């Protein structure tokens, strides 16, 4: 009852967000040292940012540098904050918003590829159909016996999503995906 008479107040000023969120892909070059991935992930969870996809691997062994690719969603204002907050992390060398760079160069978006392994089990017509569709999607068979296939498929996220959706009624068992690897077109590095 009290709650009705006396709407709850707050010591904080809360304004609603008016900008529309967009999806961007970031490349983050970091020292490959213990805890560096935890720092990046902790920043996203701690400040309430989104991670749609995250991949990481050491890319320059002599310098112990790893490249992290993050697909994230937010308003342009939040995306700018994410970039600056990432740059504050001590072992972070560079942060590049690949989507912004692509737009600056008049391209739609950066090159983005993902790899998935897709296990399908079945016999008879379903099995034949699965193999035929895999061929159409240029998926490779990397393991098989008389009852199953494991396909390896590489491509844009939308292509992989489509392939998985098609395999579902044909006996889809499990899927494993790498997440997005990305870079910008053209001769320049990040």
């Amino acid at each position, binding site marked *: 009852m*009290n709650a009705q*008479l*006396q*709407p*709850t*107040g*707050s*010591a*904080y*000023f*809360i*304004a609603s967000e008016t900008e529309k969120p967009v999806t961007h892909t970031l490349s983050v070059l*970091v*020292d490959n040292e*213990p*805890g560096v991935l*935890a*720092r990046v992930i*902790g920043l996203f969870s*701690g400040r309430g940012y989104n991670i749609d996809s995250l991949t990481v691997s050491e890319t320059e062994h002599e310098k112990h540098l790893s490249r992290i690719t993050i697909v994230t969603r937010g308003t342009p*204002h939040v995306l*700018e*904050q994410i970039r*600056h*907050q990432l*740059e*504050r992390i*001590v*072992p*972070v*060398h560079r942060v590049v918003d690949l989507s912004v760079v692509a737009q600056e160069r008049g391209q739609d978006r950066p090159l983005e590829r993902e790899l998935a392994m897709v296990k399908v089990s079945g016999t008879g017509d379903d099995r034949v159909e699965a193999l035929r569709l895999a061929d159409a999607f240029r998926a490779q068979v990397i393991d098989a016996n008389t009852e199953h296939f494991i396909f390896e498929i590489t491509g844009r996220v939308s292509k992989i999503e489509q392939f998985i959706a098609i395999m579902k009624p044909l006996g889809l068992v499990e899927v494993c995906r790498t997440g997005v690897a990305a870079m910008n077109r053209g001769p320049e590095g990040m």
Partner: protein
Amino acid sequence: MNKAQSETGRREMTGAEMVVQALIDNGVKHIFGYPGGAVLPIYDELFQQEEVQHILVRHEQGAGHAAEGYARSTGKAGVMLVTSGPGATNAVTPLQDALMDSIPLVCITGQVPTSLIGSDAFQECDTVGITRPCTKHNWLVKDVNELAGILHEAFHIATTGRPGPVVVDVPKDIQFARGIYTPPQTAPRTSYQPKMQGDLEAIKAAVALMATAKRPVIYTGGGVINSGPEASHLLRELVDLTGFPITSTLMGLGAYPASGRKWLGMLGMHGTYEANMAMHDCDVMLCLGARFDDRITGRINAFSPNSKKIHVDIDPSSINKNVRADVPIIGDVGRVLEDMVRLWRATVRQDKSALHPWFEQIERWRARDCLAYRPNDDVIMPQYAIQRLYEATKDRDTYITTEVGQHQMWAAQHYGFEKPNRWMTSGGLGTMGYGLPAALGVQIAHPEALVIDIAGDASVQMTIQEMSAAVQFDAPIKIFILNNQYMGMVRQWQQLLHGNRLSHSYTEAMPDFVKLAEAYGGHGIRCEKPGELDDAIAEMIEVRKPVLFDCRVATLANCFPMIPSGKAHNEMLLPDEATDEAVANAIDAKGRELV
């Protein structure tokens, strides 16, 4: 050890020796800490040397705040040393406090031996995991040969760029192990390169914008203090040159003197009417080393709607975070001010009379006398107590710390700060219990100075155990408690927002602070009458002992002026308008919708 090693300062020693050697090599004179199983080898080394003095606190949180007070009052890094597990977790509050207020703090923690990490060993915790979000950077040392380099890097990162806390977690076997010590080198890692010098083109644009201003205001923050005394000096020069009015955040008090002619007082939620109105109506805002915190801006979409904003900050993530900057300048405030002053002198031919209408307007706002309160002959008004304290201490070498709450705001409003590094308070995190240990830290750094913690009766009880440390180390800190027997600020919000239902904000079993002071071996004073206040304050200053001063003030006084929730700078609640009814209705239905 061979000859080449000794010539370059490289020597073989144990990890524990390296910790002490690294402290010495980084110029550390005092550390604050508490021993325990996982740091015993380091304590053994401390015992066998005299260059670093260790201040034994009574709780690790106290060590952290003491180190913060030490850092804030000296401009050097504060250092704390604690054990693993509970020692480290108790350090979390001061670490986060230092992170939010950009205080250089080096925290060395013991850790269980490497072989036991991950086994849920006695007094084990994931220190680097727990402290990762509340430090600028942290390290778990896994190889004794990396220990010295990490410690030097820790000092470098804590004190450069935007300063902040760091943690070095040292397992016990690393403290015992022998390895090669390397002295500090100036080869910072390539991924950490704070930008010090502001972009000259941006500074030129800023100066050009400032030169055209009809209604300018300078808004400064803790960044000016952090940048060093030279930055405060340059700020005063810029104000003299431009004739612009100036206000400051809580953290920035003292960078420009409160007695200065262009001073508007503090801005923000409990800032002055003239400062907030000037922020709202200005046409050019120069923000120096402040971060547009929500306590400063009020309702963000009504914040200074018609101004061009110049924002100078060393941290790029501060720019455009809360408020869009028209002219962003990334760099150290001191360096940017140097360029700004030089360019203004060289390029601007200013007609100072153009600012007259603006100052006439400011004087009209000032005439509202927003900090006024009704004096009382029988009861000490809290504002009066601060004013008398200020009068009694202003001509001395005085440092002020505070706890968090109404007393903190009254201190900021009514105590005039003339110099930087004289005001230590918990701004960002708002840590009750900060002030008493911070005062201890300040007193250790400045043994001859007068160090006063302006406290509240609730806050002071959060870290009152450090009275014992103050007695042990002959630190004659003065704890000036504005005792209203309430958590005053909590109560004020309950009156504003929760129908005056005072849920758990009254302290019904208050200790006898005089007896408590005596029990600790300090000195207790109680004052209940306005007429006795000056004598009691004089007694407090004279006693060469830690003092608990129980200043009984009006119990129901509230802190005004105030920007209520969901309101803009030009919608302040002023003290003469703050009737019971106005207070109850200060936040209208629209403001509540914003919640």
